[in-house]
């Protein structure tokens, strides 16, 4: 079978599953789940170093940034200024240019503030960042982000951490049709089949955190998501049959005794 890589900002990835590194019981659990998921990109947050407890384990000691692509995010930022500050710092840590922009607008539903997101995308693209943008599932906004220099469009399936699965398949399909940029479902998935649906809609990948980290068995769920993304992609590439309203027998009607 022909190799089917995910290409983001000219970089090739074999896995179409991106996983978050938050909410795990421990860093070793997180590292194990990432390994099982087969993910090659993981999202990470930028936070203050704990200066009073120097023995606190560091993420980089568990997940090697030379082997796994770190995707710094702006989680917790509620305006463009905070998001830009965070990503400029992330770049300074060690040259990270591929970033996930996420500017939230409401503390309860965690929906993105698209006006602030759009502003930030423009600035970051001009500064040479490769920006993967968390956004709502609005085709018009997705187009605007594309025109502002985004490197990947990442619409939500449902609110972050909600586990509700894809709520607006039609919009996702419209966005798929209008863009050649990588389209990655980010946020709101609850179980492996949600990832399959995303891939069958033609998405290039999915980003999952809570659904794996907070599953009763995170390691098994990591593997389930890995398989679900592969299955969904294969299904999409195979070209599904047309839907019809009546039955159509699978066995020949000729030669019936």
């Amino acid at each position, binding site marked *: 079978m022909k190799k089917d890589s995910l290409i983001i900002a000219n970089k090739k990835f074999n896995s179409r599953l991106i996983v978050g590194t938050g909410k*795990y019981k421990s860093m070793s659990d997180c590292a194990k789940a990432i390994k099982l998921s087969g993910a090659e990109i993981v999202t990470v947050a*930028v936070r203050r170093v704990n200066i009073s407890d120097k023995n606190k384990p560091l993420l980089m000691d568990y997940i090697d940034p030379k082997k796994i692509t*770190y995707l710094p995010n702006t989680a917790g930022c509620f305006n463009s200024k905070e998001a830009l500050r965070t990503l400029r710092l992330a770049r300074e840590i060690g040259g990270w240019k591929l970033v996930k922009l996420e500017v939230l607008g409401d503390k309860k539903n965690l929906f993105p503030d698209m006006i602030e997101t759009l502003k930030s995308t423009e600035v970051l693209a001009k500064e040479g960042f490769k920006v993967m943008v968390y956004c709502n599932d609005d085709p018009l906004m997705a187009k605007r982000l594309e025109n502002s220099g985004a490197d990947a469009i990442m619409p939500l399936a449902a609110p972050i951490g909600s586990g509700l699965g894809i709520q607006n398949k039609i919009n996702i399909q419209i966005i798929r049709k209008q863009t050649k940029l990588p389209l990655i479902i980010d946020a709101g998935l609850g179980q492996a089949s949600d990832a399959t649906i995303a891939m069958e809609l033609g998405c290039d990948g999915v*980003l999952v955190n809570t659904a794996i980290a907070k599953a009763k068995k995170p390691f098994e769920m990591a593997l389930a998501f890995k398989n679900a993304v592969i299955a969904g992609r294969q299904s999409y590439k195979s070209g599904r049959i047309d839907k019809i309203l009546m039955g159509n027998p699978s066995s020949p009607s000729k030669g019936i005794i």
Partner: protein
Amino acid sequence: MKKIKKIKIKINGEIKSIYQDSNLSEVINNLKIPLNKVAIELNEEIIDKKKINKIKLNKNDKIEIVHFIGGG
């Protein structure tokens, strides 16, 4: 012996007392922070890590030291 004066600065929101004329490099080293895993801001301006031994600290300076942690 002449007593070296101390000044107060803020690191990651915590007030710390350091010797006057300390440079940023000394402060970071004292905290045993691995420089290759962090980014540093001084008064909301990002600092080039290669130049921290040339940056003298002043009273009420605000330093932010950040790194990557788990996140979605």
